C-alpha cells in the first residue's frame, strides 16, 4: 500500500474521530480518570516515602536516647535509677525497648503506576527478636496475590477501563461503513478492503496509543521526576501497555472481520472484556483458594503454642531448672526483681523463641508452599486472561508484586536472625548480666532498604511475546476473514 494512501486514510481518521463528540468526550473522561489514578498512586508513593523518612528520624532518636541512657548509667557507677526492666545495660531490655530496628522496603518510583500489593502488604516492619514480623498484624492471612483487581490506579485504568474505550473506538470500523452505506463506494475504489480496514484500525491504534503516551509521560515526569525514564522497568511497562492496547485493537479488528452489525460487534467485545477481565480472574481466585487453601493465622499461632507447650512439658523443665536453680537467679522465691531474674527471663525468652521460630517455620512452609502453588498456577493460566497477565507483569515491573514483598519478608527473616544472633550472646552472658554498652548500641544490626523492583524472576518477556503472538495471530485471522468477505 502506497504512502499516499496511508496519508489519505490518516487524514480521514483524524477528521472522523475528532468530529465524533461522543468519542472525544469519552476520551477526555478517561484521561481525567487516568490523571486521578496517577495522582492517587503518586500520593501513596509519596506517603510511603514520608513514612520511611519518619522511621529514619525515629530510629536516630531512639539510638541517641539509648546511648545517652547507657552513658548516664555508666557515669553513675552502673546504677540505674528507674525500673529494672527499663535498664538498657541488660541486653534483653534493650532488645525489647530501644533496640528493635525497622526493616523497610523502599518504594520504587513506578509504584505510583501500580499500587499492586503495596497497600496490603507491609512495606516496613519493626523487627523484634521474639515476635515474628507478620504476627504483629492481627488480620487473617490471605493470599493477596489473588486479589487481582486492586486500587484505583494507573494499572487499573489501563487494564480494565481503557479496553472499553478502545472498544468504543473500534467496534464499528467496518460495520459503520456498511450501515452508513459508504461500504459501496469503498468497494468500487481500487484498494483492497481488507487492507483499508487494517490500515484504519492501525491508524486508530497509533493515534490512540500515541496520544495516550503523549499526555501521560509529561504528567508522570511532572509528578515523579524523570529518573524512571532510565529504568528498564519503565521501557518494559511502555512496551507492554502499548502491546496490550494493540491486543484490544486487533481483537476488535477480528470481531469486525466477521461482518456483523455494530451492535453485535459491541456486545461480543464487551462480553470478551467481561469474561477475560472480570470472570476468569474471579473464577481463578475461587478455584485456586479451593485447590490450595491457605492455613489460617489461628492455626499458625496454635502450631507455635503447641511446640512451646510440648517443649516446656518435657525438655523445657530442664531449661527452667538450669536457669532458676542457680543461686543467683532464685526468681521464684524473690519478692523483688533482681538482675539475675532479668538475665534468666531473657534466657528463657531466647531459648523458647528458638523453639517457637522452629515451629513457625514449619507452619510458614505450609503457608508459603500453598501460595507458591497458587502463584505457579496463575503463571500457567494467565494467558486465559490478558488483563490478569498485564496485572501480573505491571506489578512485577513496579516492584509491588507479591513475589517482591515475599522476597522482602524473607530478607526481614534473615535480618531478624542476625538481630537475634547479636542479642542472644549478650543476653546469656552470665558473669555480670549487664553487658550492653554504647559500643554495642552502635553496632546493633540495621536493615539496608531496597526497592525490590528487579523482575528477572517474572514472566515479563514471555508476556511481551505472548501479546505479540496474539496480535499477529488475531490480525492474521481477521485479515483472512476480510479477504474472504471481500470475495
Amino acid at each position, binding site marked *: 500500500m502506497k504512502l499516499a494512501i496511508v496519508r489519505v486514510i490518516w487524514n480521514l481518521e483524524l*477528521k472522523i474521530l475528532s468530529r465524533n463528540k461522543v468519542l472525544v468526550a469519552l476520551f477526555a473522561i478517561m484521561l481525567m480518570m487516568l490523571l486521578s489514578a496517577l495522582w492517587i498512586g503518586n500520593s501513596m508513593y509519596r506517603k510511603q516515602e514520608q513514612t520511611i523518612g519518619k522511621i529514619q528520624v525515629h530510629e536516630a532518636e531512639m539510638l541517641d536516647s539509648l546511648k545517652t541512657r547507657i552513658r548516664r548509667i555508666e557515669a553513675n557507677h552502673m546504677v540505674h535509677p528507674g525500673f529494672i526492666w527499663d535498664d538498657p545495660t541488660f541486653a534483653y531490655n534493650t532488645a525489647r525497648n530501644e533496640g528493635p530496628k525497622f526493616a523497610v522496603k523502599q518504594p520504587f518510583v513506578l509504584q505510583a503506576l501500580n499500587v499492586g500489593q503495596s497497600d496490603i502488604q507491609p512495606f516496613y516492619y519493626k523487627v523484634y527478636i521474639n515476635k515474628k514480623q507478620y504476627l504483629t498484624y492481627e488480620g487473617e492471612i490471605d493470599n493477596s496475590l489473588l486479589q487481582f483487581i486492586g486500587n484505583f490506579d494507573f494499572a487499573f485504568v489501563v487494564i480494565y477501563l481503557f479496553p472499553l474505550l478502545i472498544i468504543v473506538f473500534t467496534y464499528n470500523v467496518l460495520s459503520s461503513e456498511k450501515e452508513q*452505506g*459508504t461500504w459501496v463506494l469503498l*468497494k*468500487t475504489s481500487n484498494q483492497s478492503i481488507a487492507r483499508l480496514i487494517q490500515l484504519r484500525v492501525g491508524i486508530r491504534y497509533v493515534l490512540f496509543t500515541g496520544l495516550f503516551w503523549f499526555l501521560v509521560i509529561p504528567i508522570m515526569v511532572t509528578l515523579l521526576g524523570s529518573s524512571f525514564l532510565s529504568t528498564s522497568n519503565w521501557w518494559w511497562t511502555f512496551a507492554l501497555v502499548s502491546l496490550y492496547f494493540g491486543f484490544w485493537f486487533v481483537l476488535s479488528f477480528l470481531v469486525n472481520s466477521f461482518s456483523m452489525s455494530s451492535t453485535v460487534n459491541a456486545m461480543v467485545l464487551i462480553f470478551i472484556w467481561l469474561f477475560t477481565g472480570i470472570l476468569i480472574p474471579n473464577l481463578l481466585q475461587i478455584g485456586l483458594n479451593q485447590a490450595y487453601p491457605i492455613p489460617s493465622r489461628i492455626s499458625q499461632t496454635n502450631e507455635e503454642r503447641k511446640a512451646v507447650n510440648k517443649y516446656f512439658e518435657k525438655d523445657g523443665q530442664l531449661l527452667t531448672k538450669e536457669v532458676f536453680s542457680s543461686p543467683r537467679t532464685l526468681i521464684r522465691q524473690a519478692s523483688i526483681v533482681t538482675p539475675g531474674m532479668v538475665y534468666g527471663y531473657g534466657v528463657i525468652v531466647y531459648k523458647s523463641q528458638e523453639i517457637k521460630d522452629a515451629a513457625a517455620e514449619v507452619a510458614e512452609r505450609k503457608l508459603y508452599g500453598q501460595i507458591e502453588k497458587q502463584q505457579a498456577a496463575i503463571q500457567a493460566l494467565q494467558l486465559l486472561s490478558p488483563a490478569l497477565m498485564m496485572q501480573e507483569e505491571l506489578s512485577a515491573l513496579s516492584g509491588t508484586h507479591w513475589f517482591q514483598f515475599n522476597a522482602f519478608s524473607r530478607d526481614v527473616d534473615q535480618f531478624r536472625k542476625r538481630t537475634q544472633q547479636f542479642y542472644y550472646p549478650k543476653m546469656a552472658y552470665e558473669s555480670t548480666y549487664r553487658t550492653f554498652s554504647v559500643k554495642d548500641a552502635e553496632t546493633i544490626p540495621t536493615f539496608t532498604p531496597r526497592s525490590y523492583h528487579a523482575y528477572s524472576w517474572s514472566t515479563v518477556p514471555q508476556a511481551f511475546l505472548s501479546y505479540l503472538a496474539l496480535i499477529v495471530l488475531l490480525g492474521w485471522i481477521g485479515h483472512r476473514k476480510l479477504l474472504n468477505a471481500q470475495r
Partner: protein
Amino acid sequence: MLKAVNLTKAYGSHTALDHLNLEIQAGEIYCLLGSNGAGKSTTINLFLGFIPATSGQAFIDGVEVSVNNQATRDMVAYIPEIVNLYPTLSGMENLEFFSGLSGFQYTKQELGRFMEIAGLQASAFHKRVSSYSKGMRQKVGIAIALVKKAKVLFLDEPTSGLDPHASNEFSQIITQLSLQGVSTLMATHDLLMAKNLGHRIGIMHQGRLKQELISNEVSHVDLTRIYIDLVKEKEVNV
C-alpha cells in the same frame, strides 16, 4: 467496453439473472428497464464484482471481472440510488478522500472544479454532508466518478427521488461524460429518462433481457406500450 456472456446469477432455485448477453460500446449509454426483481441491479453488481456469477462472464474493457476485479475496479465508478458519504465530512472532504483512495491527487481548486462540473454549488462545498439533500449527494457521487476518470459508469436508479430540475442536470452531465467516451450502464424505472438519455434500452423481466431498443427509433409512447406489454404478458404467463 462492457460485455456480458451468458452471465447468470442464481440464489438456490431462484435465478436472478438468466444468461444475459450484452455488449456496450465506449461512450454508449445503455439503460436497463424493468420492474423490481427484474435483474437490473444484479447485472450491475456482477459487473462491479460485488457478487460472484453462477456462470458466464462479465468483461470490462476486455478484462474479466471475476479474474481481475482489482483492475476492473480501476475503470469503473458507481452511483447507487442513494449516494452515502461520510456524514461528518464536507462534500469537498469526501471527494478528497475518495479521489485519494483511487490514487489521484488534486488541489483544492481542481476538486472544486470537479464539484462545479457535477453541478454542486460552491457554497455547499464545505458544508457537512449530513446537511445535503439527495440531489446534492448524487452530485458528489458524480464528482467522485469524475475525479476517478472512470471509463465506465454504473448507475442504479440514480434519479429516483430527484426533482425534475436536478434530474435534468444529472442527465446533462451523463451526456457530457458520454461524449468524452465514458460508457454508462444505468438501471432505472424512469421510461422517459431512459428514452431521452440512453442510446439503447434493454427491457428486463424475471432475470432475462427480453428486448433491446434503439432510443432514437422508438417514441416514448411506443416504449411505454412495449414495456407494459412485456411485463403484463409475462405476468399473465406466470
